[in-house]
């Protein structure tokens, strides 16, 4: 196994463990989903409701209870995965930075997080679909499950963004519940009689709701509407990616280990004699070489010279030092 794959496998394993040990998410899955679906079965009216199905452009008159299975299922998966991702993101910032500072490559860590999000979304969507299947058989089960999965992934992305932006767990929980409620409420004719408004296209759950209705009451697949899902996800992913990058940035890179051979080959480091004397050194900054040949203050020159390791000092080669910033004319 390559080293890259090992990094990915280890991180994915621990990310999944972290998801699986999120107590609140597990309780929501175990209790909230079956209770919610059962209550819909017991209490929702079966009277027909109009729904604008944009896969075919027609207005369907569908069983109100069955429609609520769709919106209720979406509500459940979005809350669970949204909260799960919020919670993981919110808590993991400093730990991720510690891993990166220790040498963990960021792309592998990030890939592991995305894998865990998709894995959790698959599990929660499949479970919710199975719970609905107990009471109602949608016409296209796979599309129903896909609708649940896309909603889960989208809200996972929203959870990541909230995890980056918000400062408290209660705030995050509240925000996820509100967003999911508003989203479902505006799209479902059970709550909003004007749910055929064109603006619903811009809601995060739009494609998933359309897929759910297509799955429940038609033999068609609303591909165009489903295409909105990756857009929402991509926007959230970019915000999450930037935040991850900023939060795990490490400014001082560790130098190479000092070997016995290097220590033995050490040479005295020359010192400039007077303050303000010009020090000519090449400084490699993050892979790009810039040359600090102006009149650097003595202390900066000393710092640079001091960093010249023995074998490089001998031929006055450029040196891997990590100047954090150079303020010219500071003194």
């Amino acid at each position, binding site marked *: 196994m390559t*080293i890259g794959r*090992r*990094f990915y496998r*280890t*991180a994915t394993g*621990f990310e999944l*463990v*972290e998801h699986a*040990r*999120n107590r609140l998410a597990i309780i929501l899955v175990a209790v909230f989903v079956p209770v919610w679906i059962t209550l819909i079965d017991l209490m929702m009216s079966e009277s027909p409701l109009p729904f604008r199905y944009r896969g075919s452009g027609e207005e369907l008159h569908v069983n109100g209870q069955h429609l609520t299975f769709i919106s209720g299922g979406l509500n459940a998966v979005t809350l669970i995965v949204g909260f799960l991702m919020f919670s993981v993101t919110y*808590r*993991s910032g*400093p*730990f991720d*930075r*510690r*891993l990166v*500072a*220790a*040498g*963990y490559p960021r792309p592998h860590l990030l890939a592991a997080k995305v894998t865990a999000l998709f894995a959790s979304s698959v599990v929660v969507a499949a479970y919710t679909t199975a719970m609905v299947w107990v009471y109602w058989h949608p016409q296209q089960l796979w599309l129903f499950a896909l609708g649940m999965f896309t909603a889960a992934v989208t809200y996972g992305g929203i959870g990541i963004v909230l995890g980056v932006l918000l400062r408290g767990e209660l705030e995050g929980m509240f925000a996820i519940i509100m967003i999911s409620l508003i989203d479902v409420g505006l799209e479902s004719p059970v709550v909003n009689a004007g749910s055929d408004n064109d603006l619903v296209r811009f809601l995060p759950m739009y494609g998933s709701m359309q897929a759910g209705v297509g799955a429940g009451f038609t033999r068609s697949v609303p591909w165009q509407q489903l295409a909105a899902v990756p857009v929402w996800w991509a926007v959230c992913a970019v915000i999450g990616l930037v935040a991850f990058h900023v939060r795990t940035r*490490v*400014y*001082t*890179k*560790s*130098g*190479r*280990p*000092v070997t016995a051979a290097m*220590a033995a080959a*050490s*040479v*005295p*480091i020359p*010192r400039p004699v007077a303050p303000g004397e010009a020090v000519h050194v090449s400084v490699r900054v993050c892979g790009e070489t810039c040359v600090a040949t102006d009149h650097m*203050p003595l*202390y*900066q020159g*000393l*710092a*640079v*010279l*001091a*960093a010249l*390791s*023995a074998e490089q000092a001998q031929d006055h080669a450029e040196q891997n*030092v*990590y*100047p*954090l*910033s150079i*303020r010219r004319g*500071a003194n």
Partner: protein
Amino acid sequence: MSSQNSTLYVADVRKAFGRRQVLDRVDFTLERGELAGIVGENGAGKTTLLRILAGELKPDHGWVIPRGRLGYCPQRTVLNDSLTVAQHLRYFQRAYQLEDLHRAHELVERLNFTQYRASRVRSLSGGTRQKLNLVIALMHDPAVVLLDEPYQGFDWETYLHFWELAGELRDAGRSLLVISHLSHDIDRLDTGYRLANGVVTPMPVEAHAG
């Protein structure tokens, strides 16, 4: 200021938060086999300085040049509540790319929390969490060790174990920089610095026994 044995160079580091200049020209050098400490009052900027040295914060100006790998033990424990002690060690084994966990297990034994290896961090006491925090900073045998009040929550015996361990690392040629607000720790150091008004100044240290 500089020598062939230096492992960490800190030159003219400055940092301000808004209009408050927390660090103003911090200069010092850490040598191989040196156990140094920085003391200062609460809010003097000790943690800010150590976070800069560890690369967590970017200074407004200055140079931080480590030679060799760094080990950093942050003041607040940085762990994952959902994972066990053993899982932390395996995660960081991968990060540090270590062949085995002999050193990590040895440290766990030294700090006397072997019995918690299978426990999740969430269920650990503050002191045990701090021990794991410290082990993660030391398990890859870094050349330069930066410790920010690493013994918070330790009982007296573990506190003594910690200083014993620090002495051994120093004797093995590692450089250690310990941040403390306890002035009585100063006697355990080779070199002491006081951080006040944004400036680091050497302070007299009694010769240690080891």
